[in-house]
């Protein structure tokens, strides 16, 4: 029986990487009859509510982690097995009317999805959490890890956020101070733009000599189609081109989900230069293209969300271990922009981290040296191999779609190309969209289920509010009003009004603000979106 407070391994974030790691660790511990405690903390109210992905999943990675997963009678597994990709298309939309289907032989292998399964990440994560719980992993939701606790250069745990503060930061009657959660090793699986991982990397110079990490934003809707629909089941569709201009790296996706539902998403690299680009509006525009609208006829939006993904790839990976800490999953940056996949890498990274942690447990010490086995294992695995094969993929698209596309075939033989931080991309150039159709942003937002206690301190603030006015003067508009996929920023009489309770936690704002004037902190644990099948 563990004494309260004594945690051996703490995973921050109940995402696929952490849960795979926790599961693997418990398997290893049990095989050796060991009882070390494995705890996962998650800032959402319930597991899965902050998870969002496409996703076309390479399931082979599960074979190592859960050898007989296919025999499971869990509903999620049944759904997944029934969602094998059977139709797989890549379509180029050169403008708002035309559509050119790329013949299969011309589709690069990295964009072929046969053998993959279409899944909802929020549902997968719930399944993994159940498995983990069954193995003795403790999972606690509603707890936001606000800071790393570091003593003499060693990470000794995390400090949780306070609860029960009022808007002015004073203590309410039910004030609960954030506790320090101590652990012998802290595994950071916070996902894209994880704040603790960034802090760790910054503090210990783990990114020295590496490329800046860059990100893309995915804005997604789940749409219910009528029983007789043009899209059909077991189908994935990827698009390039419209509505993304040639200088906006990204594309569209449309995947069949169960029960006549489809997941439609538009992904855009966050270095876009247009100061009035509104991602949610771009998604509506995407849906209006006749090729797409035909497929979505009679459909009704039932879900909405947004999340970023790291795209810097191989050269943007920092060192992944430090004394007492490891970084896994999207927090490390294991996404291949070439394959538009990151999920199976996240799972694998968690699994490999678990092996390294287990060795460290047996060795009784968790220094950087003891944990380095993780990086060695990664180097041998398909994770690093795949990322190396895409090592300049994202960077070549800095030259635009028409140069980048051909270059993408030879990018892995090019010397290291640098990346620029995304916020530097902004220019005084407008898209000037007039399209008003589709759903308005607030209505879409209502489908995300996002909520925050309205009298809590705002988790978003301007570092220097006086900077906002010159920003408007410089760009002719307030970019934040447009780039937030939620509805946090509203310009009112030249001032920006904040509605932090409309936040989706994607953190686009702190990446994209051209003056880097936005501070985004974790809100109270339990707050945020309530994704069900994202």
């Amino acid at each position: 029986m563990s004494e309260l407070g004594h945690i051996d391994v703490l995973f921050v974030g109940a995402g696929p990487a952490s849960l795979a790691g926790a599961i693997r660790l418990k398997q290893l511990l049990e095989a050796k009859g060991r009882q070390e405690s494995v705890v996962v903390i998650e800032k959402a109210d319930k597991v899965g509510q902050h998870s969002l992905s496409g996703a076309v999943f390479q399931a082979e990675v599960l074979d190592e982690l859960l050898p007989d997963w296919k025999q499971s009678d869990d509903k999620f597994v049944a759904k997944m097995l029934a969602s094998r990709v059977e139709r797989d298309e890549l379509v180029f939309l050169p403008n708002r009317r035309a559509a050119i289907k790329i013949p299969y032989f011309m589709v690069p292998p990295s964009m072929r999805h046969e053998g993959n399964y279409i899944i909802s990440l929020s549902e997968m994560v719930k399944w993994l959490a159940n498995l983990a719980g069954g193995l003795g992993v403790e999972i606690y939701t509603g707890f936001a890890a606000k800071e790393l606790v570091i003593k003499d250069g060693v990470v000794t745990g995390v400090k949780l956020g306070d609860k029960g503060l009022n808007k002015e930061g004073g203590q309410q009657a039910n004030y609960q101070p954030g506790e320090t959660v101590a652990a012998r090793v802290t595994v950071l699986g916070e996902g894209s733009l994880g704040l603790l991982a960034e802090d760790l990397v910054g503090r210990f110079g783990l990114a020295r000599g590496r490329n800046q990490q860059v990100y893309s934003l995915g804005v997604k809707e789940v749409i219910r189609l009528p029983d007789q629909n043009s899209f059909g089941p077991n189908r994935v569709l990827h698009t390039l081109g419209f509505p993304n201009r040639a200088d906006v790296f990204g594309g569209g996706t449309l995947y069949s989900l169960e029960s006549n539902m489809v997941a439609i998403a538009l992904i855009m690299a966050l270095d876009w230069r247009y100061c009035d680009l509104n991602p949610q509006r771009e998604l509506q525009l995407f849906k209006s293209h006749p090729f797409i609208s035909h497929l979505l006829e009679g459909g009704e939006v039932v879900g909405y969300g947004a999340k970023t993904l790291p795209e810097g790839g191989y050269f943007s990976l920092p060192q992944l271990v430090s004394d007492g800490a490891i970084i896994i999953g999207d927090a490390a940056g294991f996404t291949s922009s070439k394959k538009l996949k990151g999920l199976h890498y996240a799972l694998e990274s968690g699994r490999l981290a678990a092996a390294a942690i287990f060795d460290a447990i047996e060795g009784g010490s968790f220094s950087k040296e003891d944990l380095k086995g993780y990086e060695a294992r990664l180097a041998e695995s398909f994770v690093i191999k795949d990322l190396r094969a895409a090592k300049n993929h994202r960077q070549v698209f800095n030259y635009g779609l028409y140069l980048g596309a051909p270059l993408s075939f030879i990018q892995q033989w090019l010397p290291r190309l640098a990346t620029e931080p995304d916020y530097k991309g902004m220019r005084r150039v407008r898209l000037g969209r007039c399209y008003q159709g589709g759903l308005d942003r607030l209505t879409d937002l209502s489908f995300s289920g996002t909520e925050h206690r309205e009298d809590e301190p705002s988790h978003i603030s301007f570092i220097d509010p006086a900077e906002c006015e010159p920003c408007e003067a410089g760009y002719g508009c307030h970019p934040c009003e447009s780039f937030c996929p939620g509805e946090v920023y509203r310009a009112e009489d030249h001032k920006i009004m904040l509605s932090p309770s409309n936040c989706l936690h994607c953190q686009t704002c702190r990446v994209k603000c051209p003056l880097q004037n936005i501070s985004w902190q974790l809100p109270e644990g339990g707050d945020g979106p309530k994704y069900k099948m994202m």
Partner: protein
Amino acid sequence: MNYIVLVKQVPDIRNIPKEAWDWEKGTLKRGLLDNVLNELDKQALAFALKMREKKQGRIIALTMGPPFAEEVLRYALSIGADDAVLLTDRKLGGADTAATAYPLGQAVRKIEKEIFGGDRDYLIVSGMQSVDGDTAQVPPQLAEELGIAHIAYAVAFAFEGGQLQISRITRRGSEKVAPAGFPCLVTVTEWTRPSYPSFSRTRWAHSHRLYQWSAADINADQSRIGLAGSRTIVVKIFSPREAGQRNCVFERDLKKLAGMIKEAYLNRARAVEEEEKPKYRLPKGKQPDYEGEVWVYAEQEGGELSPASFELLGKASQLAAVLGERVGTVLVGRGVNGLSRELIARGADRVYIAEHELLENFLPVPYGRVISEMVAKHRPQMMLFSATPLGRELAPRVAYGSGSGLTADCTGLEIADFKRLDREYTAILVQTRPALGGNIMASIITQNSKVQMSTARPGVMRALEPDPARQGEVIKYKPAITEADLAARIVYTEHLPPASDIKDAKVIICGGRGLKSREGFDQYILPLADRMGKFLGQEAMVGASRLAVEIGCIGRGHQVGQTGQTVKPRLYVAVGVSGAVQHVTGMQGSDIVVAINKDPNARIFQVADFGVVGNLEEVVPELIKALDSQGGSSE
């Protein structure tokens, strides 16, 4: 002193996905909803925790539900409960409030015996009502099952000279009540901010062993649990009045608009009344399932009859006429004889009066007992109570005590024949009520009961015009009551002016971010509310969108919308409100919606009946002028 806190896992009614409704089957797919702990139960837990600071003891959380309801017990443990009991068994499922109160009572007895070692010095604390059933019936029925006193709507407590005193809210203000003995049951309404669990306590709660009891473990009598033990059954669920298609009539001539608003307002008032013309006729050759008078509980306080009781008499007259029965009304108190005149004038054929000096002030135990005795003696076929705070804590005890089903907060009552699963019902009372926070309407019938009982929502049924020439009988009843029978003592009463709640407002003027500031609000919204109120002869209240509250226009109590209040006024005027879906959710049930916005494409116009496109700084003063010039109140 020890504590038992009742907690319940309920669906999250604020986030019901469309696909969860199965209108054909008339059910809700509960599996598709998130489950949360009933908000008021958090208040109950906080109440017990606070009490424990003063009087040490163990806190046991108790819930009856499916296995995954253990989640709410984990929360209870994580904020300070010492132990938790999960009462779970398929046989207990499908239960109405009576078939829930009984097994809970058995569980309480078992807790008393096995966990408290027979020590009867404990308090049962529960939230006032749950958001899914929202009947508020289980706690008083549990108290009736255990034969103990209950104190409802508690908001505070104190130990005065070692004696527990509970402060509770009443219709006329507040009261301090001291229970005469223990165990006793307290229901709690919102009084504090709920507790957050600490991480370390959450970890402890996660691994702490729960008690898990089945129907057999609590020696439950099979005939009193589950569907079989239920005395009411839901026979249909359906959507409330369509909030949908409104066609906005744009009118820039504000004098004309004022006239149109008034006309619509008055028409709506009449439509409400006309809805209730009963058409039922007893089919030839069939006997009605029930026999006897139609009874109404006449609520009086301080010698004054509640207008809600007149509404009930009006409805009872209608029902009785259809059944060919008499209307009886029950009056309890001291020196209340004189009120029988008025009750007869308002439709009662017989007034049954129970008078005793100890019955001067309302206390649930003696009132409940006396009425149950009268019901047993005179055997009415149905009894109606107003769903006032008093009615809602009294009726459950009477119903439970007389083995009758009770349906809470009915907005529709009618006599009908009914066929269900090969069973035919003749001339029974079909009771319609909102549930799940007003998200659905449910039709309910009584079964396995001697009397059909309901509480009816005030303000829905129509009272008869008083007819002073009407004749009726007065039957006196002399109850045998002693001090001990009261089971509690009212220590202190305070009359406060009624706090207006925007939820009950008939006319709401709502300001949005178009008002920009508190000054804007004060300059435009407040005077418009004042004038509209005078114009229609009905006090108008002020509402605000979330954004308006956040920029400081007015306090949060006035917030309308998904994260504020849901309101259903007769008239809703939205000024400078964009009409985002999060706001519309809170007001789409309004009868008449008028919108003023400078943006012709504002979403608010999609849910409005009348619209004015223009700057509110111009339109509102002009509208006020138009209202003033057309003068005076409605009829």
